[in-house]
C-alpha cells in the first residue's frame, strides 16, 4: 500500500471536519496550557516566598564566645576574650560552603555631630557583613580594603542616625561625626531597612572597618563575634559542625572539654524556610498532577468519543477495500497531527498566559521547563493513544458490524 495515499486520506478527513478537529485540539491545548501556567504561577510564588525568607537571613551563622566557668562561677559570655582574629582567619580559609564571613565588634554609645547627639551602636565589620545582613549602600560608598588595612576613621551610617544628626537636611556625606570622642568621616549612607520582626530599628546603626573599631575605639585584642553566611540552608548543619571542629582545634580543646564558644544558626528561620518550601513543592505537585489528570481525562474523552463516533466511517472505508492497517495508520496520523499541533499551541498559550500575568498583573511567575516537557508529552501521548485505540477496536470489527454501528 502506498502510505502517501493514507496521508492524503488523513488530511482530507481532517480538513473536511475542521470543527471536530478544532474541538479535539482544544482539549489538548487547554490541558497543556493550564498545566504550564498553573505551575508557572506556583513556582513564581515559591521563588518569591523563598526570596523573602532569605532576606531575613536564614542562612546566617553567628559565632560568639561562650560563658565559661571560672572558679565555679559561670561568667557572662560577652566579657570572654576567647575569639581572636586567627579564629576568623581559620574559619574563612578552612570551612567549606561559606558564602561570606566577617569579624564583628560592637560598642554602644553617643554619637555627636555639632549640636546634635543621639545614642546608637557602632559595628566594626568587613565588607562581607553587608551581604550577610543584606545591607546595601544607598548613597556614597562602602569602605575599601585599604581603609581596613589602615584602620581608617571612616564610617557608613544608617538612615535613623542621619535623621537624628542632620535635622536640617544637610548632606551627611563628608561630614565628620564623633563616637566616644573618636572622629569618623561619613562616606556612605545605608539603604533603609525599617524595623525587624523583633521591633528593633535596623537603621539605627553605624558600620565602620573592623580594624578601626577594634584598635582605635575599643583597643582590644579579641572580637565579639564572627558572622558567617552559608551558600544554601541545606548546608547550615554541616557548616556548624565544621566551624566547631576548626575552633576546637585553634583553641586547643580536646575530648570532653567544654567549648568556649557558641555556634548558632537562625534555626527557626531555617525551619520555616524548609517547611514553606516543602509545602509549596507539595502544593505545586498537586496543582500540576490535578491539571494533568483533568487535561488527560478531557483529551481521552474527546478523542475516544470522536473516534467511536466514526465507527460507521471506518466500516464504510473497510467495505470499499481499506485494510485494518490502513484504518489504523490513517487514525494514527490524524491523532498525531491533532495532538502535536494542539500540544505546540498549548505550550505557546501556557507560556504566553504566564508572561501576560507577569506583564499585566505583576505576578511572580516562572515557567518550568519540566512542566512544558511533561505536559506536552502526557497530553500528546494520551491524545495519540486514545485516537488510535478505538480505531484499532473498530478496525477489527466485521465491516458490516462497523457500518451498522449506532
Amino acid at each position, binding site marked *: *500500500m*502506498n502510505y502517501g*495515499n493514507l496521508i*492524503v*486520506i488523513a488530511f*482530507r*478527513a481532517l480538513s*473536511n*471536519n475542521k470543527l471536530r478537529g478544532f474541538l479535539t485540539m482544544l482539549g489538548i491545548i487547554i490541558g497543556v496550557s493550564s498545566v504550564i501556567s498553573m505551575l508557572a504561577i506556583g513556582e513564581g510564588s515559591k521563588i518569591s516566598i523563598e526570596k523573602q525568607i532569605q532576606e531575613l537571613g536564614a542562612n546566617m551563622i553567628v559565632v560568639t564566645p561562650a560563658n565559661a566557668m571560672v572558679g565555679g562561677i559561670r561568667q557572662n559570655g560577652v566579657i570572654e576574650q576567647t575569639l581572636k582574629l586567627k579564629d576568623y582567619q581559620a574559619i574563612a580559609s578552612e570551612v567549606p560552603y561559606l558564602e561570606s564571613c566577617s569579624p564583628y565588634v560592637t560598642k554602644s554609645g553617643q554619637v555627636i555631630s555639632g549640636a546634635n547627639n543621639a545614642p546608637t551602636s557602632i559595628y566594626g565589620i568587613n565588607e562581607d557583613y553587608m551581604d550577610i545582613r543584606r545591607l546595601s549602600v544607598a548613597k556614597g560608598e562602602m569602605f575599601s580594603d585599604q581603609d581596613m588595612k589602615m584602620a581608617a576613621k571612616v564610617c557608613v551610617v544608617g538612615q535613623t542616625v542621619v535623621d537624628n544628626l542632620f535635622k536640617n537636611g544637610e548632606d551627611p556625606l563628608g561630614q565628620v561625626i564623633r563616637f566616644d570622642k573618636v572622629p569618623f568621616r561619613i562616606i556612605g549612607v545605608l539603604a533603609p531597612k525599617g524595623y525587624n520582626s523583633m521591633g528593633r530599628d535596623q537603621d539605627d546603626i553605624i558600620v565602620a572597618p573592623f580594624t578601626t573599631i577594634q584598635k582605635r575605639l575599643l583597643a582590644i585584642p579579641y572580637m565579639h563575634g564572627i558572622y558567617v553566611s552559608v551558600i544554601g540552608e541545606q548546608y547550615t548543619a554541616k557548616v556548624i559542625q565544621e566551624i566547631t571542629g576548626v575552633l576546637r582545634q585553634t583553641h586547643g580543646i580536646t575530648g570532653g572539654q567544654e567549648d568556649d564558644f557558641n555556634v548558632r544558626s537562625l534555626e527557626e528561620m531555617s525551619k520555616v524556610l524548609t517547611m514553606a518550601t516543602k509545602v509549596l513543592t507539595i502544593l505545586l505537585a498537586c496543582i500540576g498532577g490535578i491539571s494533568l489528570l483533568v487535561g488527560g481525562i478531557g483529551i481521552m474523552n474527546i478523542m475516544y468519543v470522536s473516534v467511536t463516533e466514526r465507527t*460507521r*466511517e471506518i466500516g*464504510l*472505508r*473497510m*467495505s*470499499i*477495500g*481499506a*485494510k*485494518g492497517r*490502513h484504518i489504523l495508520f490513517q487514525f494514527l496520523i490524524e491523532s498525531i497531527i491533532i495532538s502535536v499541533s494542539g500540544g505546540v499551541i498549548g505550550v505557546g498559550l501556557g507560556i504566553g498566559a504566564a508572561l501576560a500575568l507577569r506583564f499585566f498583573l505583576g505576578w511572580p511567575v516562572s515557567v518550568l521547563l519540566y512542566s512544558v516537557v511533561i505536559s506536552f508529552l502526557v497530553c500528546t501521548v494520551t491524545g495519540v493513544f486514545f485516537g488510535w485505540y478505538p480505531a484499532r477496536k473498530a478496525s477489527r470489527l*466485521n*465491516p*458490516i458490524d462497523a*457500518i451498522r454501528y449506532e
Partner: protein
Amino acid sequence: MEDIIRIENLCRNFVVGSETVHALRNVSFSIRPGEFVTIMGTSGSGKSTLLNILGCLDTPTSGEYYLDGMSVRKMGANDRASYRNLKIGFIFQSYNLLAKTTALENVELPLLYNPAYTRRMRREKALEALKAVGLEHRIFHRSNQMSGGQQQRVAIARAMVNDPVILLADEATGNLDTRTSYEILALFQRLHAEGRTLIFVTHNPEIAEFSSRNILLRDGHIIEDTRNSRIGSAQKVLDSLPKETN
C-alpha cells in the same frame, strides 16, 4: 462463460443471546456475467445477510463462495479487503457517503486504497464515473449539499469507479421517492445494458420487472428462481410519470 458468483450450500447463523438464528440455510446458486439479478424477500428472509456475504462484508458459517473463480471462504481479512477494493462495488440503502466531503473525493476514495492508481488516473476515473451517473456538474458539491437521489448517484459512481466485476445494491431505492427511484433504476438498467453484472436486493416486488432474473428468499431458503424474458423499461415508466410542478 465462467460464473462470476457461485455459492454452494451457504449457511449463516447468528447467535442472539442463547438462541441461534438461521438467517441462511443451504443456499446455492450461480450468477453469470451480464445478469441483472434482483433478490427479493420480506424482512428477515435473509436477503441482506446474503448480500453482505456476497459483498465480502460478512463471512458464511458454512458453505462455499467463489467470486470470480476464487474461494472467498479461504481468504484472510486482508485479502478479502483487497477483493472488496478490486472486484466489488457495494451500494447501501443509506448511501454511506463521507460527511461534508465533495462528490469527487467520495468517488475517488476506493482508488486511494489501490496503489495502482496515480493521482491523475484517480481523478480522471472519478470524473468519468460521475459523468456516467449524470453528476458532472456537481463534482465539488459536498454530501450534505445534495439531495438523496444525488447522493445515491455519487454512491453508485463510487461503487463502479474501480471497474468491479459485480455491483451489489442493498435496497438502493429504499430511501427515495418514486420518481427518484425510477431514475436510479433507469441508471441501473443502463449500466446493465452496458454489460455490467448487478445484484439488487429489495423487498419491493415491482422492481423485479426491470431485472433479468429474480431470486425469491423466504426464511433463509430460495423458494423461487425465475428468469424474466420481458424486461420492463424504467426510463419509459419515468417518462410516463407526471412532471413535478416545482
